[in-house]
């Protein structure tokens, strides 16, 4: 019994070295096949391998597949299916760009395994309000939630190391929630997610050698949303993702809908001669988190990434505080 439990906790740890080794191999493989894209924020626009999504998804799912054979948990099946569907949509988008609405529409499908296998609870805990039953509306919320998280992660994937660092930090409050509430399988899934992104980070951080691509970002977003739903930590997840939620809200409201960032007519940020990022002065440029961050003056890409990760760490702290407020009722 003890040995099995120890093995279950050791399994997700495999995701870290696996992700690192796979990412390094994939980076060389993609470069060899000419599957690279220019890094627009660097002098000379160096070519960077893309997509790194397969390395993230394989390293995330390998320990979970073994875990499934050990535990037979249906939660792992629904989580894995959601991730694979979002990954597939992103992979198609990496190969031939899909329009924003089509991509969102297809990502809705990734929510279906959660509904079909019923790996959710309609009773949600809220701070100061206790546990609230959302019987009718909850399945609809799931259909909305996964595309929202997937696209929120996709929209913040604009700088080297940002989406991988962001995911790793945002997952910490979920792991704390699952451990404190005694949910073993969601704890292990969230730990595997954290370690798979942490293993990818060294190749993604500035100067990036490998970009996750939409296959990576959509899979990460779907994985995050799915594990939050399976582990009943939806409210904690919303708080932990506040910087990404604000960014998505401001972008969508600025451009008036779901528009691929590659197809935005006005850029929110412009590069100067020293390759520092500046907030666009054009009033019609989209309002993004980065544009707001640059309101005081130009910053390097690394400085912007670091500050957004600090914001995320602050949100993650609020999410942990929120978890402890869940037991409080007024």
């Amino acid at each position, binding site marked *: 019994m003890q040995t099995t439990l120890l093995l279950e906790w050791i399994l997700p740890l495999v995701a870290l070295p696996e992700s690192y080794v796979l990412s390094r191999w994939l980076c060389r493989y993609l470069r060899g096949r000419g599957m690279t894209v220019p890094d627009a924020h660097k002098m000379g626009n160096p070519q960077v391998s893309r997509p790194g999504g397969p390395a993230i998804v394989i390293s995330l799912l390998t320990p979970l597949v073994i875990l499934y054979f050990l535990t037979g948990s249906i939660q792992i099946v629904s989580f894995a299916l959601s991730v694979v569907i979002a990954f597939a949509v992103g992979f198609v988008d990496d190969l031939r760009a899909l329009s924003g609405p089509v991509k969102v529409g297809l990502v809705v499908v990734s929510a279906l395994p959660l509904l079909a296998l019923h790996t959710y609870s309609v009773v949600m805990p*809220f*701070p*100061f*309000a206790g546990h*609230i039953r959302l019987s009718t509306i909850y399945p609809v919320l799931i259909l909305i939630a996964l595309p929202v998280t997937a696209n929120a992660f996709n929209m913040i994937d604009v700088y080297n190391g940002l989406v991988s660092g962001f995911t790793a930090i945002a997952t910490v409050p979920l792991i704390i929630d699952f451990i404190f509430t005694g949910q073993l399988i969601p704890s292990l899934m969230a730990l595997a997610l954290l370690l798979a992104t942490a293993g990818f980070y060294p190749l993604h951080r500035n100067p990036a050698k490998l970009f996750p691509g939409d296959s990576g970002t959509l899979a990460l977003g779907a994985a995050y949303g799915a594990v939050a739903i399976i582990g009943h930590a939806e*409210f904690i997840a*919303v*708080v932990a993702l*506040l*910087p990404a*939620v*604000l960014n998505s*809200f*401001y972008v969508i*409201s*600025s451009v008036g809908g779901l528009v691929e960032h590659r197809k935005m007519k006005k850029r929110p940020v412009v590069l100067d001669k020293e390759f520092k990022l500046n*907030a666009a*002065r*054009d*009033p*019609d440029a989209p*309002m993004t*988190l980065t*544009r*707001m*961050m*640059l*309101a*005081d003056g130009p910053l390097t890409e690394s400085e912007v990434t670091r*500050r957004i990760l*600090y*914001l995320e760490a*602050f*949100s993650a702290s*609020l999410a942990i505080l*929120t978890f402890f*407020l869940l037991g409080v009722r*007024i």
Partner: protein
Amino acid sequence: MRLSAFALLLVIISMSWLLLIFVVYWVFVLVIPIQPPANPPYYIAIEYVVFKLLLALIAIVAWLYSYFGMRNAFAAYKRLRTAPTPSA
């Protein structure tokens, strides 16, 4: 002393968090439990449902507008030029 953009973003995130908790509390604790008197005529029961929906809708719309409000306040404070938005 003027606050830096980073400090203002920390304030915006804190405000968003507080507003989110307040809206949830408003909708689930204050509005949804409102009940009509026992055995009301159907039109009174309908009025209660409409009243509760309105109260919840007001909170949710105000919450969404607060995001525009915070963004516009940020842009005005930092003199960042933005296109007019609903709450500008």
